[in-house]
């Protein structure tokens, strides 16, 4: 019961409830991040409740009402299309709403997978050093600077496009970032007194890694996750745009944009709105990520 700390206005509260509260308090003070959080929250809501939120069935086609501009009432099908219709008369807004599901799903799984692999590699490389560290970090350097789209292209050429492949490709791209950041944190943590203390009382290596090192690298992992979700959404949409991402039967922002490209001179809204959705989402994540980094550790090198 440490009420004095809990009640004090110090920036870093000691218990979890206090920490979360300070975090919330801080985000409401920094407007851009607050804005980003609200947009992301609404997006999550829209994606989860897509069948309830979207005005029409995203796959219902009305070929006679194809390529109708935004803000139009369509008498034939009794629809008000806020963002217009696409090349086969489907409601754009509904398609964009459903597409948000794919985007969030892909980034969610890619984050989880790359986070698990990257954290594991980073922990082992940073804690044990040696040849594993050298090889892992060399690999990280190479893949961070390698033109990735081409590799993705050649992988998809072999396997064919699918949701799973997109998630695998994204994870291949991002895990190295986790590995580098976690390794950096581990390097400094392993020199700390409490690690020596744990060793002195005879704690096993696994126990030290899981119980003492891992909790201390979670903050950078959180920051990296936020900063890189935006990057993942961009890569996912460009793969779908090129037709090598999620198969065209599922609406994706990049896919809708790619289809709308052919109609840019007659129906600009088909390509414009999904792109706007991508930009707003990525911007929100980036604003949130920048703030999280500044909040926890401005010196984190990502």
């Amino acid at each position, binding site marked *: 019961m440490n009420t004095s700390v809990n009640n004090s206005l110090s920036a870093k509260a000691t218990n979890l409830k206090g920490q979360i509260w300070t975090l919330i308090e801080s985000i409401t003070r920094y407007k851009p991040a607050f804005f980003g959080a609200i947009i992301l929250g609404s997006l999550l809501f829209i994606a989860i409740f897509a069948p309830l939120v979207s005005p029409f069935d995203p796959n219902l086609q009305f070929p006679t009402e194809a390529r109708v501009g935004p803000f139009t009432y369509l008498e034939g099908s009794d629809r008000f299309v806020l963002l217009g219709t696409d090349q086969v008369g489907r409601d754009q807004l509904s398609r964009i709403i459903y597409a948000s599901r794919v985007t969030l799903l892909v980034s969610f799984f890619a984050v989880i997978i790359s986070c698990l692999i990257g954290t594991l590699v980073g922990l082992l490389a940073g804690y044990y050093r040696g040849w594993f560290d050298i090889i892992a970090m060399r690999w990280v350097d190479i893949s961070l600077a390698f033109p990735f789209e081409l590799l993705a292209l050649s992988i998809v050429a072999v396997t064919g496009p699918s949701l799973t492949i997109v998630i695998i490709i994204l994870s291949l791209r991002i895990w190295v970032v986790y590995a580098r950041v976690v390794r950096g944190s581990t390097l400094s943590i392993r020199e700390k007194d409490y690690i020596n203390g744990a060793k002195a009382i005879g704690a096993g290596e696994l126990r030290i890694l899981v119980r003492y090192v891992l909790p201390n690298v979670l903050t950078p992992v959180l920051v990296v996750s936020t900063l890189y979700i935006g990057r993942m959404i961009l890569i996912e949409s460009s793969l779908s745009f090129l037709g090598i991402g999620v198969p065209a039967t599922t609406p994706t922002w990049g896919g809708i944009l790619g289809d709308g490209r052919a109609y*840019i001179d007659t129906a600009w809204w088909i390509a414009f709105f999904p792109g706007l959705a991508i930009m707003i989402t990525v911007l929100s994540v980036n604003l949130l990520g920048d703030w999280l980094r500044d909040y926890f550790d401005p010196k984190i090198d990502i």
Partner: protein
Amino acid sequence: MIYYLLMRLLQAGFVLIGITAVCFIVLHLTGDPAALLLPENATEEDYDNIRKTMGFDRPLYIQFFDYMKNAFSMDFGHSFQQNQPAFKIVMERLPATIELAIVAFVIALLIAIPVGMISALRRGSKIDIASTFSALLGQSMPNFWLGLILIFFFSLYLDLFPTSGRISFGMSNEAETKFFMLEGIFTFNFSLFSDAFLHALLPSITVGLYSSAKLTRLVRSSMLEVLSEDYVRTARAKGLSNFTVIGYHAFKNASIPLVTLGGIELGLLLGGTVVTETVFAWPGVGLLTVQALQNDDFPVIQASVFLLAFIFVFVNLAVDILYAFLDPRIRYS
């Protein structure tokens, strides 16, 4: 210094071998590489033939060494679509990609250096905030979307630039090489240069803006770091003009990280213009690869991945060497 260079050279070699290995693994990912190297209508006889000529019936490690030998002699087999060596087809498209990457890189630097420096000098001012926000915006924008907006506004609506391609129809017969802009400059063929330049401008802006967002942040932070150094204070104390202090003493030192990251960025640009090339129908290696993918032309894909990886490793090596000369404190550790 020599040790440093040797180590870098050795590393570059290892990276190349690693990339070859990755290409090899990708080729064998489905279990039957013959299926990838043959067109869809191939007969059983074709399969037996290619298995024999490529040696797919031999042990994997022998195949790998063979593959590596072929890769380093730039032999990736024949394209299915055009009956030519895959490598030759890719090489023909390379000048377009190089030209696009270089113009984009120049645009990125032209934006990043002045904006980054001003942001650092006027830290916290409206200009600084605006540039930080634009950098954030630039990094959040999908570049294919930006490209389409540029086409819509500047090409279709204002009719200022061509919508696609590298050069006007008929103009390409005039050119001797595939480097249209360079040739235009050196042969004083102004119409060739301006035609190629107008075609290149929108795609280069599309590619360059994203890089400039990254580079602006870098210039700003390294400039801020340098401005608080002792030698800048000494230079000011000597009574040198503001221009000399910032332009010479500060910028020269701030540009060292710029060389490294700029080099990596150029390497990325050379291999990372796939999307933009598709949007603008720019006939470079990226577009070729996407088309090859749609036609299941696997040898062409392998050839272009390998070639761009090779260029990429080479650019990085060049940057490392340059870096060692710029900053003599760099030693291999």
